[in-house]
């Protein structure tokens, strides 16, 4: 299934994938801007303000009731990041209209709700209502602080902030506690208006129904927005340290976490896809089979490649007394790949695992939406099937070269407090 893409305004594109198998549809409006410490929290707070009401249904309970009337449609504000970019998204998920009891056009009703929430939010005196804003500001602060509750997420975020210090991608997708605490409804309203004016806007529709009327609808509704200097998508160029930075943080934890962050200047993305699978991406990968199974050093030990920051991260949960042994073995396994010590089975298993994941992407509207959004960021429009072919052609030599290009940038350890 291919992507339909049409520019419908200055820096505004409508994208659609249809597949009659689906029973639910999704429309997501993504507002893309460069991550910046001054604006990240304000943008995130704007997302929190948009998904609970609009000017036509200003009461949040009435809004929830309306969603219930539309057969449990959901409207959700989400903030994410890809590379150096912050993405403020407003997403509607709803059943296919053919399942409605009385022939209602759920697709257009949901599109209308989304439009009203995004373009006509509930305001008082030209800004977000104070009482509602104060609640969402506190929720945002809680969300920023909540990383601490999940030590695995916390340790990866901390490692990222060290790896990319000074670069946009080091900034947390929700900003900082300090900037969030300084927010006012005035500054968040300004952030919202700035996003509408300057963010690159990618509207994604994935569903079983035709998209022509949706494209027309959004083209008409977005034509009234005054657009300024649209920033576009910020690419990634990262500094590679000459020496590894080691950071240890102590908290009251039962299990330590270790994150090894590597950077590369290589552009061979498909080789890195294979490398990550062979190294630590599957239960038959080198890290799983050796660090966990053979040596019992870690409960989990996995690798992940991010092409938008040109980095590869290994993260593990490890007993305090095994930290150094685990680090040594993780690096030893990478060295083996650099020396082309990759078996035919390891390559085959990695390719089959990648093939399985890529083929299954089309079975979920959410997964397919994420796929094509990442394609837009990569400035390509490859289908999962096409990428599978490219991955299938990767050789051991390319994987070894990719491994050689990796430089260990940061080692972050979260461990228990000293007694």
């Amino acid at each position: 299934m291919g992507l339909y893409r049409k520019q419908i305004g200055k820096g505004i594109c409508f994208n659609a994938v249809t597949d009659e198998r689906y029973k639910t549809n999704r429309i997501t409006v993504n507002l893309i801007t460069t991550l910046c410490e001054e604006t990240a929290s304000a943008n995130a707070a704007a997302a929190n303000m948009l998904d609970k009401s609009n000017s036509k249904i200003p009461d949040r309970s009435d809004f929830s009731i309306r969603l219930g009337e539309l057969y449990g449609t959901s409207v959700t504000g989400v903030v994410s990041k890809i590379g150096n970019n912050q993405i403020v998204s407003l997403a509607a998920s709803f059943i296919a209209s053919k399942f409605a009891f009385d022939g209602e056009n759920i697709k257009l009703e949901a599109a209308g709700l989304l439009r009203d929430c995004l373009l006509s939010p509930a305001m008082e005196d030209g800004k977000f209502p104070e009482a509602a804003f104060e609640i969402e500001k506190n929720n945002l602060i809680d969300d920023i602080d909540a990383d601490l509750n999940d030590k695995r997420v916390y340790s990866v975020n901390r490692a990222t902030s060290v790896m990319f210090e000074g670069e946009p991608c080091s900034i947390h997708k929700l900003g900082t506690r300090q900037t969030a605490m300084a927010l006012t409804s005035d500054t968040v309203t300004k952030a919202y208006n700035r996003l509408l004016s300057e963010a690159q806007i990618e509207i994604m529709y994935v569903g079983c129904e035709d998209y022509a009327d949706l494209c027309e609808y959004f083209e008409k509704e977005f034509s009234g927005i005054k657009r300024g200097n649209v920033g576009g998508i910020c690419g990634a160029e990262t500094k590679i340290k000459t020496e590894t930075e080691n950071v240890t943080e102590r908290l009251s934890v039962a299990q330590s976490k270790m994150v090894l962050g590597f950077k590369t200047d290589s552009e061979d993305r498909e080789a890195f896809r294979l490398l990550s699978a062979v190294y630590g991406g599957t239960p038959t990968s080198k890290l799983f089979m050796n660090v966990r199974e053979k040596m019992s050093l870690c409960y989990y030990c996995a690798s992940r490649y991010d092409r938008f920051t040109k980095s590869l991260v290994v993260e593990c949960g490890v007993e305090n007394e095994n930290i150094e042994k685990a680090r040594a073995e993780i690096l030893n396994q990478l060295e083996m790949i650099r020396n082309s010590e990759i078996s035919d089975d390891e390559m085959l298993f990695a390719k089959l695992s990648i093939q399985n994941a890529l083929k299954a992407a089309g079975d979920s509207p959410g997964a397919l939406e994420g796929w094509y959004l990442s394609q837009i960021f990569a400035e390509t429009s490859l289908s999962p099937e096409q990428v599978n072919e490219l991955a299938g052609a990767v050789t051991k030599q390319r994987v070894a070269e990719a491994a050689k290009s990796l430089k260990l940038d940061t080692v972050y350890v979260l461990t228990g407090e000293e007694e």
Partner: protein
Amino acid sequence: MEIIKNSRLGESYFRIKHKSGLTIILYPMKGYSSVYATFGTKYGSVDTEFKTNKDKDFITVPAGIAHFLEHKLFENEDCDVFELYAKTGASGNAYTSFDKTCYLFSCTDKFKESLKILLDFVQAPYFTEQTVAKEQGIIGQEIRMYDDNPGWRVFFNLLNALYVNHPVKIDIAGTVDSISEITAELLYDCYNTFYNLNNMVLSVAGNFEIDDVISVADECLKQNENITIERSTYDEPDTIAQPEITQELSVAFPLFSIGFKAKPFYGRELLKATYETKLAMDLIAGDTSPLYREMYESGLINETFSNEVFFGNGYFAPI
């Protein structure tokens, strides 16, 4: 073969009682790329005291053994199950909950081969004292990982406050001490009781042919004697253990959980009670209720506030 239909959705699925005793549920979904298969047993962490019709007395096993057994089944005598799945390209996994243990895979190719792997390895237990000792180390690390999870801790603390004797209050993985008591012999006792096909279900959904499942089932499933399993009732009083438990952890902000202890239900009454209770809880504190709105606007809760009906053999608690 029983056919269950939904005319509004235009969907149907099939339910078969295989000659081996296994219940098989089949949901073909034409046009999809992937297939999901789950092979599960009605055996979970709460089943720590049980007997069959062949046993004179109940046997008691250490907490965490159902989860331990799940880990060990992946280790064949000849090779690792993940290596078998790797050859077919399938993605395999498993989980243990309070009342069931499930082994599953998803694939986009070589479905019959992957299904054969699933049915074969779950029916081929291989436990030795050496492999048990190795797993104690790995599961010990898993337990410690969950010790750091505040959501997990607040939930189990709630169960410890609600329940006096019932093993539902014990962590699904057990404790480092309880799993140290597990032996290969005990694993076989549990396996031979609960991994009887008459106590199990195979469920398949996605792009597959029904005949393929039946042919693999006919080839791989062993004949099992139909035994009766009796699970202990644990002498659980109506009263709670204690009204409140507070635990300090390094968290950004507090988490809380409120539970109400009710008499357990069974059979059709359980189904009815579950829906009635969920509806009542949504009316009282769901996101369209006045209470939710009042608490949200006063900053007492955020969007993570939710409710569920928690139930199983001998326990029923709106939370």
